[in-house]
C-alpha cells in the first residue's frame, strides 16, 4: 500500500575529477547545471524536472554513490515515515534543512544492502528548464548532448535483497513490480515502484555492501538511444552495451560509464505498474534473457563492474 513516497528525487554521486564529470553529465548526457555550493558540490537536473535539481556531484578519490533521496508528499508524511522506520528497527539520522542546497530536512537510514537512503518533503521548485510557466512549448531550445529528460532510477547491489525488499514494501509502501527468483524461491533481484513506472529503485544481490550498478536517465524514444550511442563514440566514452532491450521491465537501453567508472544508463519505453498488479517474475537461471533480451547472455563483467 502506498505510503506517500513520490519519486526518486536526487542522488549524490562521487566523481574523481569534477571538470571531466561535468563534461560527461552536463555536456554529454545533457543535464542542466543549476548550482554549486561551498563544499564544491555541483547540482544538475534533467530539463523536464520541476524540482531544482536531482543529481549532486561531489569530488572524491573513490567513485560511487553517497546516497539517494526520495521525495515524500509533505512534512506530516515525513514525520510518520520517520517513526515507522524507527519502529521497524532502522537506525535513523537527520540532516538539517539547507545542508543540501534548497532542500528541506532529510531523514536518513541505511538499507540491509548497505545503501544510504533519505526522505525529504521540501525542495525548491524552479519549474521545467527553459519553458514558460504559462503556455509552455513542448521542449526548450539549447539542450545539449543526449538531452536527458530526467533522473529516473538506480540499480543498487548488495547482500540482503529480501530484507531490503521487505523494508521498502512494508514501511515505505513500494510495490514489487518485477522480481528475479532463484530455484529455491529466494528473491535475488527486486524491482520496486512507488509510482506507475516499472521501477523507481532496483536491488540485485551481491556479496559487497553498498554498491552502485547504474544510474539511469530517461530519453524520449528509441531513436534518441541510437543517437546517444553515436555520441558515446564521438566523445570516446566507454560503452558497456546497447542499444538493446531489457527483458525485465521491457525497457530499451544503452549502458556506458562516466569518467570515474560509475555506470550510467539512458533508457526509454518499458512497462507500467499499477498497485494491484502481481509482480512479473524472472528465473535466475534465465538471467541472460531477463537482462539482455536480444543478446540472451550477460557479458562477464556486467555484474562485477561496480563502484
Amino acid at each position, binding site marked *: 500500500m502506498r505510503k506517500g513516497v513520490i519519486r526518486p528525487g536526487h542522488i549524490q554521486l562521487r566523481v*574523481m575529477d569534477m571538470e571531466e564529470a561535468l563534461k560527461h553529465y552536463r555536456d554529454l548526457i545533457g543535464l542542466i547545471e543549476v548550482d554549486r555550493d561551498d563544499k564544491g558540490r555541483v547540482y544538475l537536473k534533467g530539463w523536464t524536472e520541476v524540482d531544482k535539481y536531482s543529481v549532486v556531484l561531489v569530488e572524491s578519490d*573513490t*567513485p560511487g554513490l553517497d546516497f539517494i533521496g526520495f521525495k515524500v508528499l509533505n512534512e506530516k508524511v515525513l514525520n510518520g515515515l520517520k517513526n515507522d522506520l524507527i519502529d521497524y528497527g532502522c537506525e535513523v539520522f537527520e540532516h538539517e534543512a539547507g545542508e543540501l542546497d534548497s532542500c528541506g530536512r532529510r531523514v536518513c537510514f541505511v538499507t540491509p544492502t548497505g545503501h544510504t537512503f533519505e526522505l525529504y518533503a521540501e525542495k525548491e521548485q524552479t519549474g521545467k528548464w527553459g519553458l514558460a510557466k504559462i503556455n509552455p512549448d513542448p521542449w526548450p531550445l539549447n539542450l545539449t548532448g543526449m538531452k536527458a529528460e530526467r533522473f529516473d532510477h538506480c540499480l543498487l547491489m548488495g547482500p540482503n535483497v529480501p530484507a531490503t525488499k521487505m523494508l521498502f514494501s512494508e514501511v515505505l509502501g513500494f510495490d514489487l513490480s518485477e522480481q528475479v527468483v532463484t530455484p529455491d524461491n529466494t528473491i535475488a533481484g527486486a524491482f520496486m515502484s512507488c509510482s506507475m513506472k516499472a521501477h523507481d529503485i532496483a536491488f540485485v544481490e551481491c556479496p559487497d555492501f553498498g554498491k552502485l550498478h547504474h544510474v539511469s536517465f530517461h530519453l524520449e524514444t528509441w531513436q534518441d538511444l541510437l543517437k546517444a550511442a553515436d555520441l558515446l563514440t564521438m566523445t570516446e566514452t*566507454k560503452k558497456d552495451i546497447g542499444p538493446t532491450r531489457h527483458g525485465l521491465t521491457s525497457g530499451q537501453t544503452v549502458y556506458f560509464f562516466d569518467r*570515474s*567508472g560509475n555506470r550510467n544508463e539512458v533508457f526509454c519505453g518499458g512497462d507500467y505498474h499499477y498497485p494491484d498488479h502481481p509482480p512479473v517474475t524472472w528465473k535466475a537461471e534465465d538471467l541472460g534473457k531477463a537482462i539482455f533480451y536480444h543478446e540472451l547472455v550477460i557479458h562477464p563483467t556486467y555484474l*562485477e*563492474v*561496480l*563502484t
Partner: protein
Amino acid sequence: MMIYRINIDGKSFNCPEGQTVLIAMTRTGNTFLPVGCCSGGCGVCKVIVLKGDYETKVMSRAKVSIEEEAKGIALACRILPASDLTICRVKA
C-alpha cells in the same frame, strides 16, 4: 609518435604514445585482461608493472591503495606507458 611494446603475462602488443594500456590491448584485438569501465573506477583491470616507466591517470583509492601504487600496482585503463612495459595481472 612513439610506439611502446607491452608484455602482459608473456603475451605482447603495441601501445602508441598517449594511449592507455587497456585501450591499446582492445584495439589490437587482445583479451588478456578483463575490460570494465575503462575509467579507473571498477578495478577489474588491476595489474602490477614489473619493468618500465609509465604515468597513471587518476585511479579509485578503493581499488589501488597508496602502498600498492608505490609498489607498481595500477589499473591498466589508467596506465600511459613512457617506455616498453612488462606487466602481470593482479586479481582484483
